[in-house]
């Protein structure tokens, strides 16, 4: 079975000479939920825009479910749904028309288009707003409208470029549930996001792009296993006057009711609690200081810059 997305040696140099992509290779398997991460300006949106035929590539090849963009463009386009980073619908059109028209561009007859529009607008909580102009929607609703529009032709591959940017946590969580469900139904999803908790929660595989190159392409589990040390914040039951010294853990005093503890991967958390207990310290609650993926992401980007991989 062909890859859902196959990118080989993809390059892009803009007219001003800026080299946005320096030879990207990437394969995404059918049914995957894939995170494409990278700092701002790393090349994520350029890659996505080339896949969606919105930007002309300088070199390399792209195929979607085996359909090469150069040889079989229309078949490739039929397989793809895109939710771009910026709002790109006519704000002076009613919500339902935006979705129905998009179906029309894919040759879906009007009757069927209305049925599908109803399905996705209901599922994404926009049915009550269907008659209103798109400009009257809130930011979160506009994002969901773009998802409904991208799904109306029922693509096999859905690319979402920061779909939850500026969306409140409640709506973000409901969007996660929705995306998990359509992925479960067989739709391959590629997601870019700056919320690394989102990528960690949703995605099975991950690629990290920086300065136009892929610097990591692996499974989420495999990547998280690379994290050698995790930092936890411990909220204490009683004030602590003096920082104890524990043999296997590095502790830092934040305030009299809060400690930070670095725990190595090969040391169990149980051991930390045994040691704290021995010192008479009672922990009321604990949490990760930063998202694990965020910690790894920053390490990798820093490392790639320091070692000159991107030069």
């Amino acid at each position, binding site marked *: 079975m062909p890859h859902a997305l196959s990118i080989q040696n993809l390059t892009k140099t803009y007219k001003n000479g800026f080299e946005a992509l320096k030879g990207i290779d990437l394969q995404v398997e059918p049914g995957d939920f894939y995170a494409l991460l990278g700092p701002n300006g790393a090349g994520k949106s350029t890659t996505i825009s080339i896949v969606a035929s919105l930007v002309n590539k300088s070199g390399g090849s792209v195929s979607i479910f085996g359909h090469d963009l150069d040889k079989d463009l229309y078949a490739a386009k039929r397989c793809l749904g895109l939710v771009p980073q910026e709002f790109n619908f006519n704000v002076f059109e009613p919500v339902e028309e935006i979705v129905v028209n*998009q179906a029309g561009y894919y040759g879906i007859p009007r009757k069927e288009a209305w049925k599908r529009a109803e399905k996705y607008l209901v599922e994404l909580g926009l049915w009550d707003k269907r008659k209103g102009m798109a400009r009257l929607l809130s930011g979160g609703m506009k994002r969901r409208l773009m998802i409904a529009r991208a799904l109306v032709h029922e693509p096999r591959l859905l690319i979402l470029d920061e779909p939850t940017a500026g969306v409140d946590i409640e709506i973000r969580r409901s969007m996660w549930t929705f995306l998990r469900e359509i992925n479960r139904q067989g739709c391959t999803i590629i997601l870019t996001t700056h919320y690394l908790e989102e990528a960690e929660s949703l995605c099975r595989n991950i690629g990290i792009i920086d300065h136009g190159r892929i610097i990591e392409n692996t499974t989420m589990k495999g990547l998280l296993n690379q994290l050698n040390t995790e930092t936890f914040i411990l909220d204490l039951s009683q004030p602590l006057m003096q920082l104890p010294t524990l043999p296997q853990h590095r502790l830092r005093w934040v305030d009299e009711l809060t400690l930070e503890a670095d725990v190595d991967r090969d040391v169990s958390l149980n051991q930390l609690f045994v040691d704290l207990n021995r010192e008479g310290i009672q922990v009321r609650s604990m949490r990760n200081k930063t998202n694990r993926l965020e910690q790894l992401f920053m390490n990798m980007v820093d490392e790639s810059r320091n070692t000159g991989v991107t030069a």
Partner: protein
Amino acid sequence: MSGYANWVALRTIVTKEVLRFSRIWIQTILPPVITMGLYFIIFGGLIGSRIGEMEGIRYMDFIVPGLIMMAVITNSYSNVVSSFYSAKFQRHLEEMLVSPVPNYLIILGFVAGGICRGLAVGVAVTLISMIFSPLSIHNLAITLSVVLLTATLFALAGLINGVFARSFDDISIVPTFILTPLTYLGGVFYSITLLPEFWQGASMLNPILYMVNAFRYGFLGVADIGLATSYGIIIGFVVLLYGVALFLLNKGVGIRN
């Protein structure tokens, strides 16, 4: 896409375009009708009554075809240029660019939208003209074919302008500085036989002259220029502009980085 799917896509674009200008008819349909009504009153009624006849025809009757054609030209052009540029500016042109709609269908869809607006305004102006001049059509086939071809030509020109436009200023430069002078000098208000010989020759370089004359022939049966020449010029420009528009969209000029 299959033939049927292409038909659905084309119908979608055309419907969208027609709905777009219909929703804002106060901005798109009404103003040109009022403007042309004023032309009929001032040039045809007040001044025209002192001019008498042009080419043996009452002046009011003489200017009616030209004014209808002027409305069709400006509206078919401005509909497409503003719609296409807005779609670029708001980025909702991307809705079509990511979908499997062939470029030629995008062109046909926008152009059909421009033709519809041009014809809608043309019909409205014709109805207004009937207050001042009885409607008499010498040859319906010529009248309809010329107005349709002219609307197509200027809708294509508007699309090309929209492709190159980078700001809202760019979409008004051509209509203001090129289209309007050419239209006024294209024999809308006078017969070129009134001009000195040099300016008669210079007028022949103005393509709008051929359209106005062919359309006037359809209405009144009189024209300064032969019909075959007029059709040749109009069809030649339509083919040329379609080729240019298709080339630009295929290359992604102004729409794909």
